[in-house]
């Protein structure tokens, strides 16, 4: 399967991914982990409130999964074979928020082996338009 050549050009914008953070979505992810037995800020409102959060908090690794989705859709087997995603969490995301994940190719280099090494800026914004996560991906094609 070949990648759309436009997706390998600097300035290419990944098709945005929008996620509605329902309580079900939060719990379907976070109850996979020790949250089954431990009431975490991701699965239990009282636990979230104990740390001053107004609602259930989206787990960072779940947010990162959402950031990976448009990258996988664009780069397919290359995303599986040789890629890196690195993100920083800027603000917590709460239940019932909607987040939008976007990305732009910012750098393209040809390697000595004739492959293409892409650097892609990725970020997510919440309903208010504030950035909640920012990061950088690398994929070799």
């Amino acid at each position, binding site marked *: 399967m070949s990648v759309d050549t436009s997706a390998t050009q600097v300035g290419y914008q990944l098709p945005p991914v929008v996620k509605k953070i329902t309580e079900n979505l939060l719990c379907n992810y976070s109850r996979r982990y*020790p949250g089954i037995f431990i009431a975490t800020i991701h699965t239990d409102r009282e636990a979230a409130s104990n740390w001053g959060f107004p609602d259930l908090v989206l787990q960072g*690794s*779940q947010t990162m*999964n959402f950031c990976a989705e448009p990258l996988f859709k664009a780069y397919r087997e290359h*995303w*599986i074979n040789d890629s890196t995603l690195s*993100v*920083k969490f800027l603000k917590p995301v709460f239940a019932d928020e909607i987040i939008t994940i976007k990305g732009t190719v910012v750098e393209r280099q040809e390697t000595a082996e004739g492959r293409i090494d892409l650097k892609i800026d990725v970020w997510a914004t919440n309903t208010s338009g504030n950035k909640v996560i920012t990061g950088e991906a690398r994929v070799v094609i």
Partner: protein
Amino acid sequence: MNQAEYNKQAVDWRYIKEGSVVATLVYGVPLTDVYHFAAAAVEDPDPWYIEDSPFGGPVVPPGYFYGEYLRLLVVPNYPMGVLNSQLTFESKGPIFPGEQVTITGTVDRLFKKRDRPYLDLGITITKANGQIAGHGIVTLLLELGD
């Protein structure tokens, strides 16, 4: 038990040694768990995850392993921390449902930032043939402080 109570009874982070192995998990990812993960936990039921792919069968989403640090931390009763501030993951090839993988967690770094303690936990995914299929680092805020 809630998260704060768990952290309170957990090993004091000051006794955790840099460079030490946190835990090792060995398992095969069940296909049914891949279905649940893709369809319900991240809402991305891509056909490559649940039907077939050019790799020869469905593949486990690389993101399946992003959260494995939590399973590792609870093995030696280490604190889960409060939040993760940073996460990096490198994917080096397909992992198939049912294939045996070894997940190893290591304490890469313990440090303080603005007087708050953080832990860099390294995660390495190794296949039965010794090939490294993925590597990650998660930075955890261990305590909120006063």
